[in-house]
């Protein structure tokens, strides 16, 4: 499923008064729905189902939020998964996390800010790439 096709479907939906579109192509399936009466045509519809979106890492967070905890970016800056260039990452997927563990560093105006975990559990996913710019509240990790 091409992401542009999904985007087009969303546009079609926004232009209409539909509440749901579902498209299956062989193995692939997209279902797009929205609550009319609550949301308005101008508001973008909710996209459900895991599919590859433009920010590949960000979408799974929505899917896993019901069963895991999400760690969000507390500030805007550059995401580093390791304490220094060349070092191994603080944690990799599958590692055990304790409350207070440093999960990553966000650099903001030359300041290196540690992001600590508020949750204990297993690191299920890293949702952003190393050295990627992150915005406020962007999902960074899921911990289950």
């Amino acid at each position, binding site marked *: 499923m091409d992401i542009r096709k999904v985007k087009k479907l969303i546009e079609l939906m926004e232009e209409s008064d539909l509440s749901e579109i579902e498209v299956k192509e062989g193995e692939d399936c997209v279902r797009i729905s929205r609550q009319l009466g609550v949301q*308005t*045509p*101008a*508001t973008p519809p909710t996209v459900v189902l895991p599919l590859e979106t433009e920010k590949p890492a960000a979408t799974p967070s929505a899917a896993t939020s019901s069963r895991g905890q999400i760690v969000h970016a507390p*500030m*805007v*800056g*550059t995401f580093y998964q390791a304490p220094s260039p060349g070092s191994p990452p603080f944690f990799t997927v599958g590692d055990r996390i304790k409350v207070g563990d440093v999960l990553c560093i966000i650099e*903001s*105006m030359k300041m290196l800010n540690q992001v600590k975990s508020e949750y204990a559990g297993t690191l299920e996913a890293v949702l952003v790439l190393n050295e990627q*710019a992150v*915005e*406020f*509240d*962007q999902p960074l990790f899921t911990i289950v």
Partner: protein
Amino acid sequence: MRKVLIANRGEIALRIQRSCRELGIQTVAAYAAVDREQLHLKFADEIVCISKNDYLCSENLVSAALTTGCDAVHPGYGFLSENAEFCRLVEDNGLTYIGPTSEQIAEMGNKILARLAFSALGISPVPGSEEEIDNLHDAATLVSQIGYPVVVKAAFGGGGRGIRIVNDEAKLEGAFSAAKAEAAAVFGDGAVYIEKFLDDARHIEVQIFGDGKGAVIHFGTRECSIQRRQQKVIEEAPAPNISQSILDALCERAVAAVAAIGYRNAGTLEFLYQDGEFYFVEMNTRIQVEHPVTEAITGHDLLRLQIETADSNLSLTQNDIMFNGSAIECRINAEDDFYLPSPGLLTEVIFPGGVGVRVDSHIYAGYRVPHQFDSLVAKLIVWDRDRPRTLLKMKRALEEMTITGIETNKVKLQNILAHEKFREGKVNIRFLDQLTG
């Protein structure tokens, strides 16, 4: 300049976006999560969420500019636009601040210093104290010299907060303490000063532009006397019912003073005008909400000029600024009949159009006006060849202005426009408060 971070929201963010786009400059729109549906985000080259619901997070704004490769920041008006620390943070991170220097913001942000500075340059302030008044005794001494009524003001104030009008001695102590307390609470500094209260004054301001190296030009005057509790509601350019030679002299004095301080970028000198005299009140070191009326009578794009002047010299001289006709701006606010905010989902939005009509607005049908911010949803600006025609055009345009789903101040604006005193240009800054009680 290649890429600008827009550190604001609403109509002014869209305004900045538009001028950048016309200059071929890329934009990064910083937005609060509650503001995701704003119109300018659709046209920006990149967007970055910087907070949940505010635009006061200096670090996130600067960090957003850095991580997206911006080389400049536009602060708009309100929020951090007159915050010297934010400006310094932008400067310290090697970015161009589209506005004055942090020192200039700091100097003009202290109203007592600003009064002194302009006084020294031959621009008389409203009669009052030359320094902070920190005790009741000094307050009483000063008032005995200038006479009641007086107004107690926060040194670092703005937006009509930290202000108390005092009509007689019995009220002085209470007003003095209240103003100090409010100043400390709202602006983080309890410093206050005292001015003579001018009870029949008009608010006249001069738009100036400097290049930071001593070259300064003016864009004429605006009248902004239609205010409710120090909030402007209707503005116009030029100021009516004052002879052109008097206004010209005012503008020339303003230019000379601002040139002397080497001011950079857009600024506004606010004056009270009473009994034929102008009294300096303060200088705003940013673009103002009402700048479009000046654009309408001069044909110059002031936002564009802000951007152009931020990293190079002024390309214009005073002779390039021609004045033509009359312009009025009405601020369309999301508010009910009792001036309470009226946020909500917009079901229908149809703006007036036609010759000489401009609407600057970030709203559209389907947009939800959030409750977290200022209630300004649109600026309606009309221009015509003379003031009587402009008034008729504004009447027509307001009739056409259709916004449903929320309440607006449209009827209140229509009532002001229909008022004889307004039509004659014979109002003062107390007009609206007296009208509405």
